[in-house]
């Protein structure tokens, strides 16, 4: 999910159930001297809740332009003087005062996929004072096999139906290896087993968000297994915020991890499930039912060309292309003296085969990524 536009924050900001859970947890840990870090603040709603509860100061850390919307809200609320805005990744924040409470929403639909937790671990080690609290500070991931015939037909088997006379069935395997955000609730759908918590992550001590877990699921309802429904729960102080199918709705979805070949199950059947996902990597899941095992991976969700992956191998020896050559010269000219217009002229007149549009985009990207704006 991208949160670069202010409107992207609507569903999360107006998720009253989530907000109330965070508010209740913050209320138990905030006093008049509290300094709170709102990590990945977005438009700042959790930071504003902390201030409303009496926190002395909030550090809002948000690398996207959404933080400027938070500034506007702060001005309207008259609390600007109690907030320090940091428009950069937490890894770039340098020295800050230690905080008593670090609040974050670094959890994707299936906990890990937004890959923000490594940044939380960095922030924790640098800025959380001894005895300070993380909200949330612990998370679990859960799954259960599901019967979702209509969804499966619409999203996966649909590829087998010719469209405009064209057979696209060779693309079905990409669909069967993709993960889908779903909100469980179709009356024709059923959970086929009690949920199993298969992975825990203690944010207080974790140094990696790598998931490599296995579990056994015992079927309690006959049906066809179309895949696994997955979700997470996060601990906020002494309460849990669950995004599961039987919990109150939130802006998070559950996820469907499909199997390629749906299969029948009976009460008492045991399914062996494995889930693997390295940080910033691919999800791989397997479901074994007796002698039959199926393994899916998001690695297979998109076509891969050898040329693309060659770049990821250890032996790859990169060489600058024409654009890279210009980028190197532009970066060397980021000396705090040359104006953007001068740099744009430099990019446009550089020898090489890139277009004017490419040179403009290149300069934009370099400024976005590497220019010190002093904020």
């Amino acid at each position, binding site marked *: 999910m991208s949160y670069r536009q202010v409107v992207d924050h609507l569903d999360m900001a107006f998720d009253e159930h989530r907000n109330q859970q965070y508010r209740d947890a913050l209320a138990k840990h905030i006093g008049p001297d509290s300094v709170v870090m709102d990590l990945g603040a977005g438009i700042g709603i959790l930071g504003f809740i902390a201030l409303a509860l009496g926190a002395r100061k909030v550090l809002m850390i948000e690398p996207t332009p959404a933080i400027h919307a938070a500034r506007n809200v702060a001005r309207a609320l008259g609390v600007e003087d109690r907030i320090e805005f940091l428009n950069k990744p937490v890894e770039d924040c340098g020295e800050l005062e230690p905080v008593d409470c670090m609040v974050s929403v670094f959890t994707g639909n299936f906990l890990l996929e937004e890959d923000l937790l490594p940044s939380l671990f960095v922030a924790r080690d640098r800025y959380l004072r001894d005895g300070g609290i993380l909200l949330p500070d612990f998370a679990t991931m859960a799954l259960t096999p599901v019967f979702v015939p209509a969804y499966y037909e619409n999203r996966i088997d649909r590829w087998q139906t010719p469209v405009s006379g064209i057979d696209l069935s060779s693309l079905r395997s990409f669909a069967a290896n993709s993960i889908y955000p779903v909100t469980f609730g179709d009356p024709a759908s059923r959970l086929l087993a009690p949920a199993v918590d298969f992975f825990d992550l203690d944010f207080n001590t974790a140094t990696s968000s790598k998931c490599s877990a296995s579990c056994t699921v015992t079927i309690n309802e006959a049906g066809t297994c179309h895949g696994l429904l997955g979700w997470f729960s996060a601990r906020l102080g002494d309460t849990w915020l669950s995004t599961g199918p039987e919990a109150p709705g939130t802006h998070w979805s559950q996820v469907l991890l499909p199997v390629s070949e749906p299969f029948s199950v009976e009460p008492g059947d045991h399914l062996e499930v494995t889930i*693997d996902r*390295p940080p910033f*990597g*691919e999800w*791989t899941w397997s479901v074994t039912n007796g002698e039959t095992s199926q*393994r899916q*991976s998001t*690695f*297979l969700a998109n*076509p*891969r*060309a*050898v*040329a693309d*992956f*060659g770049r*990821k*191998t*250890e032996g790859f020896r990169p060489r600058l292309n024409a654009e890279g050559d210009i980028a190197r010269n532009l970066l060397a000219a980021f000396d705090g003296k040359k104006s953007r217009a001068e740099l744009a002229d430099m990019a446009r007149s550089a020898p090489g085969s890139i277009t004017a549009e490419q040179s403009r985009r290149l300069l934009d990207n370099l400024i976005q990524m590497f220019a010190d704006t002093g904020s």
Partner: protein
Amino acid sequence: MDDALVFEPSPDVIAQQVADETVLMDLKTEAYFGLNETGTRIWQLVSDRRTVGEISRSLADLFDAPAPRVREDMETLLAELQESGLIHTAVAAGPRQE
């Protein structure tokens, strides 16, 4: 390499073929490995648990190249795949039904 030797893909490897090329991902090491057209054919034959001798003959037929050269290239690739942990020798290579 012994003609009767049989390799098989490591259970931790996922392969994706696009056109004549194959990309391998090793779940354990999170490393990627690319195979060209010849490598892809070798990977298919390894996946089918063919012996080294059978792979060698199949490649010689397919590419119409001198057998010693095909054999040398095949052995180089198999050794590289084995060293990278992407394949290993099959534990029990029983008779295969044609």
